[in-house]
């Protein structure tokens, strides 16, 4: 019984982090209709910035906020310098540009920070809880991770549902031209959208690293799973990204625990195809494919 609980808890902790990363991908997809492959490298880079801060005796929280700020700024700069000029051209070109950024940022990190393992401490304990004779695969760190992602999801929901800024962002995402007619500065919102995604991506980057260790390509496996989770969720719905991430995390853990670790990626593929056969637009996609 404990085995099933622990495999499930492990799946939830992994899924929450995939969800956070998928959320960052969805934030960008909603406004620019492209998937940002550089998201993983951006998150990795800001986590190294946090590590540098911690190595200079800044506490974990300062490093955490510093990384988020860096993620915000890097997201905005990339949109302005690389993505904006490509606006109006083919979407595939933007995707290729983000692939270029993905490769370049990862190589830059290896040059600047070295490619060896560096451990990333956790602000709270890493020892699991014990309930009676049950050992739970749940540590203060995993609770910290789950709560942080919870805060991010609630924050984003409030931003989008309850604030004027959120309303204009949704309007710009659904119909850019009408939004501009209504006086919404769509170009600024695009930059803000990338910056916000950069910030959320950085959260995912740090949560993956917390209580573990990092190296320049530590985010690589998350990029594939994050993208798959976002597609399962519906690519343009934040809630979909979170649900998609959790589903994928739990399935991966169950497959790895009960079938075989070698089948994890095949399991992810099967889940994705099953969802897409049921609903080609993903589970929570709000906009039907506008055919005509």
């Amino acid at each position: 019984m404990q085995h099933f609980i622990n495999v499930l808890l492990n799946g939830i902790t992994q899924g929450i982090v995939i969800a956070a990363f998928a959320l960052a991908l969805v934030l960008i997809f909603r406004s620019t209709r492209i998937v940002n492959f550089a998201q993983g490298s951006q998150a990795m880079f800001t986590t190294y910035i946090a590590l540098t801060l911690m190595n200079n005796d800044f506490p974990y929280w300062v490093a955490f906020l510093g990384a988020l700020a860096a993620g915000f700024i890097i997201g905005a700069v990339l949109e302005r310098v690389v993505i904006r000029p490509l606006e109006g051209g083919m979407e595939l070109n933007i995707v290729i540009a983000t692939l270029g950024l993905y490769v370049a940022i990862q190589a830059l990190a290896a040059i600047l920070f070295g490619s060896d393992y560096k451990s990333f401490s956790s602000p709270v304990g890493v020892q699991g809880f014990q309930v009676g004779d049950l050992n739970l695969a749940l540590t203060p760190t995993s609770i910290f991770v789950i709560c942080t992602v919870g805060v991010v999801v609630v924050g984003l929901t409030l931003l989008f549902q309850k604030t004027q800024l959120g309303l204009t962002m949704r309007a710009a995402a659904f119909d850019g031209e009408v939004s501009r007619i209504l006086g919404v500065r769509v170009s600024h919102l695009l930059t803000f959208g990338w910056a916000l995604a950069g910030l959320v991506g950085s959260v995912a980057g740090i949560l993956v690293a917390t209580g573990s260790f990092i190296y320049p390509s530590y985010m690589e496996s998350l990029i594939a799973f994050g993208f798959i989770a976002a597609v399962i969720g519906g690519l343009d719905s934040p809630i979909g990204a979170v649900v998609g991430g959790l589903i994928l995390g739990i399935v991966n853990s169950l497959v790895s625990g009960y079938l075989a670790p070698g089948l994890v990626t095949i399991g992810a593929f099967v889940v994705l195809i099953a969802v897409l056969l049921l609903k080609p637009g993903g589970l929570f996609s709000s906009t039907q494919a506008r055919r005509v």
Partner: protein
Amino acid sequence: MSVLEIKNLTTTYGPVKALDSVDVAVETGQITAVLGANGAGKTSLLRTVSGLVKPTAGTITLDGTDITGKPTESMVHRGMAHVPEGRGVIAELTIEENLRLGMRGAAKRPTDTPAPVRTLDDAYQLFPVLGDRRNAQAHTLSGGERQMLVIARALLARPTLLLLDEPSLGLAPRIVAQIFNLVRALVNDSGLTVLLVEQNARSALSIAHTGVVLNLGKVVVTESAEVLQNDATLRHSYLGF
């Protein structure tokens, strides 16, 4: 005094000249109808005035300031509200959310300008059907209800000039009449100025003060509405009734 002055405005899409040195003056407190067959350049005129399309020549001045080439996002803050072709309802948002987007445009507007619709309640009074279903998603509205929504949304920005792009499209005659009478009433009561682009020339002229007829991107006739309604030859050749 004219709110909007368009002088030899020319817009080209690649080799095609959509507008060819067009001159239009829109008098304050009046409805100016721009008429003509499909493809005559009516919608291109509005899209150029609202900045969605950059003109290749000519000038546009609003309340005396030159707005040629200025970004679309700035127009509503200058007092020009545009109801675009196809109405421009954001279907995924609720009715109230669409209206609240309209109100944003009023932020920078001077508070003393006469405005028939200032608050959401004013809008719901003007169009009760919107009030009843304010939290429903906009794509559940009928064609007529959508037209009411976008007019209310535009008015919430407290504009001095309202651009309407073929409001009658796809609506039953009874609803078209209802909407046109409302527009005329707004103009009479609050001195709103309207630039109305319509294919349905007959009903447009019934509420317009002046008519401008476009053909192949050129202004063919600028006359008062009465003259246009009575001149059979003009009606047959350009207005199709």
